[in-house]
């Protein structure tokens, strides 16, 4: 029964990617680009989840590995493409492999301090490595310095990006499905106890950094060849923070959580780009309404211990109250000419809303969307079962 299931799932994954590719042909360039970038963010988020969520090594410089992959692939393509007698997909695969290799080397270098440093100290060192790499790249002539470099040839396919995302997810999931994943989790839980039980803590940490950074390198190679242009600005500290946020928001250690959060956090701000401008009145109303809704929801989370149905009603009630209040206040403030005439472009509000949503989600659900659970039918069933038990 093993091989039929395996082959079927592999076929389904590859088929799904080509299906997505075919569907993406039907949409405009902008929408297609978003689909590709979403896949890249999924790779980044899931690969950081391996280091951060599963192995518990607080790394917050993941964009550096992404950058190493992107620049490795970009530089090699510009310099050597056409000279080695391969082209198209094989060339892309080679670039991904080399990008992954170089990123893994960087991961090894960054992973070594993790053997001595813990928690926040490790965090700041990984952040530092990221910045050092960015600044060094930014000062290299052949890499285009701060202006960036054009990458030729472009290789723009949707299927390859999402196939790599699926491979990344599959690798992490396979790790957790076998006994081999347990030492990683054990290191996260308690290094000393893990060591005493014969777990080679050093090896586990370095392995996590190697695999995680290699996938980030793949994401870099994909990005470089999709966009056809890379610059140090694309790999700033903020990007690392966003990847970290995806991991935490999804629920630390949860692969499905990391995937969902990556897609959601990537799409939300991008969708906001083309929203219509907002008046000052609506903005102020929305702000107050949101705060009220959040306070109400938070109170329910903290103080309400009744059945789930009751909690759900309260949540919905709070949100509805917030929306009603926003609209009412928006209309009310609209009476004030100064507030009504002022308008804010959605483009500028984008990051504000992103940050706001981040804070609100953390306040309401600090364990992340999925907590440490994986999204699966069993999990949904167990949730339903609990609800029934409470009702009974």
């Amino acid at each position, binding site marked *: 029964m093993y091989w039929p299931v395996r082959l079927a799932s592999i076929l389904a994954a590859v088929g799904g990617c080509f299906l997505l590719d075919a569907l993406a042909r039907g949409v405009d360039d902008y929408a297609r680009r978003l689909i590709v970038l979403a896949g890249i963010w999924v790779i980044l988020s899931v690969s950081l989840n391996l280091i951060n969520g599963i192995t518990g090594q*607080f790394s917050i410089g993941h964009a550096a590995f992404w950058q190493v992959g992107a620049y490795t692939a970009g530089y090699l393509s510009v310099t050597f493409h056409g000279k080695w007698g391969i082209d198209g997909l094989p060339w892309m695969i080679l670039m991904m492999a080399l990008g992954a290799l170089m990123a893994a080397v960087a991961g090894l270098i960054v992973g070594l*301090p993790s053997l*001595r*440093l813990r928690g*926040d*100290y490790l*965090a*700041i*060192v990984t*952040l*530092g*490595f990221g*910045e*050092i790499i960015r*600044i*060094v790249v*930014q*000062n290299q002539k052949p890499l285009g310095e701060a202006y960036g470099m054009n990458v030729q040839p472009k290789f723009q396919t949707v299927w390859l990006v999402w196939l790599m995302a699926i491979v990344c997810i599959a690798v992490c999931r396979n790790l957790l499905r076998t006994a081999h994943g347990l030492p990683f989790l054990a290191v996260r839980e308690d290094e*000393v106890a893990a060591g005493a039980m014969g777990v080679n803590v050093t090896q586990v940490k370095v392995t996590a950094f190697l695999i995680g950074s290699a996938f980030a390198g793949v994401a870099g190679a994909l990005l470089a060849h999709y966009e056809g242009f890379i610059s140090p600005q694309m790999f700033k*500290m*903020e990007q690392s*923070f966003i990847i*970290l*946020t995806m991991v*935490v*928001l999804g629920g*630390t250690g949860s692969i499905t959580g990391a995937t969902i959060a990556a897609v959601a956090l990537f799409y939300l701000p991008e969708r906001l780009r083309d929203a219509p401008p907002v008046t000052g009145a609506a903005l102020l109303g929305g702000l107050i309404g949101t705060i009220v809704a959040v306070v109400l929801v*938070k109170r329910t989370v903290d103080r309400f211990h009744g059945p789930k149905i009751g909690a759900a009603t309260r949540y919905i009630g709070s949100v509805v109250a917030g929306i009603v209040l926003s609209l009412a206040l928006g209309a009310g403030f609209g009476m004030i000419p100064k507030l009504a005439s002022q308008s*804010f472009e959605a483009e*500028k*509000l*984008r*990051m*504000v809303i*992103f*940050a*706001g949503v*981040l*804070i609100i989600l*953390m*306040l309401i659900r*600090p*364990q992340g969307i999925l907590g440490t659970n994986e999204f699966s039918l069993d999990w949904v069933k167990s949730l339903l079962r609990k609800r029934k038990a409470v009702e009974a």
Partner: protein
Amino acid sequence: MDLTHSLLGAVDFGLLPQQVVNGILLGSIYALIALGYTMVYGVLRLINFAHGEVFMLGAYVSLFVAWGLGFGPGPVSPDQTSNWVNLVIMLVASMGVCAAVGMFIEFFAYRPMRNQPRIASLITAIGVSLLLQYAGALFLPNSPPVPIREEVNPYRANVLDVPLKPKSADLLAQTKQAQVALDEAERTLKDTVAAEGIKSEFDLSPEGKKVRDARNAARTKATVTQNAYDQSGLSLRIPYGQLIMFLTSIGLMLILRHVVMNTAPGRAMRAVSLDYDSASLMGVNVGRIITLTFAIGSALAGAGAMMNATFLGTPLTTFFGMQPGVKAFVAAVLGGIGNIPGAVLGGLLMGIAETLVVWVGYGDYKDAIAFVILILVLLFRPGGLLGSAKVEKV
């Protein structure tokens, strides 16, 4: 020998003391910001990523106060003069508003997260930081970046000149000698013009050329010796503004030290930082102490921001706090996070390192040096310079 030469280019090491002093002046600002990070980390074990943004807001408060005092964005009338009172008003306003903002952030963003995993608080902190940057960009003037007008600083023209090494007497004698020789040559030239009836100084006859060449040679020699004499001494030049900045920083740090070491709230703060749970069981109002910590830390950042924007003249954007914030945080970790003298030491080292790197011609790597030092230090002293790495009890 060759190596140092090619790496460091034409660096005149006689200027080293000046550079170190510049570094210390800059470092005092980093130290002020680092104190905020280290204090918050000490009591809450939280990296307050929004601290850099508090710093940014402080700079804007100073800017607006300066505008209010008549140093607005438009042209300033020439008779508009400033005095030290203006500076004090700006400083106090900036510190006050920052303290309020710090307490506000603590109350709304961090307090609800107190019993949650630390990484969740960290993400909240990142969220607050982004929110302040981008929401600030909606309302605060930031494009193009606005500097605080330098006219607000009444001491902008004054420079403290500290002679380190007197100018060479030997060279002085030579200069005088050369000057005498030059005068002589000039006179000879003039005399020749008068006596020989040469039409002008620019006569092309062999006679005239000879005298003129002699004068030119004398003139060159005089210039060279004069220059050599001018450069023979060594003095530190510190603009008054930066001196005030440094002294104020030191003053604030001493006050902080007094508060932390000798007052009841300070003692409570130390207790919370040693053991959060025990402190609360021993009757320390932990919530109030944390609020106080945020207030003090943020006020220090506000002071740093006001002085940075006023005396160093950095133009403001809402992303103004990012780089100093990160560097100050690195400084705090470098000194041993949670350790107050460590933050000061780390800040000063960071300032010196950065100035020296720029000075030897690696300005492009200015922002990387902080991290390079940090990584090297942490690899050898995982707890930072003055911190002690906690040994986990098994």
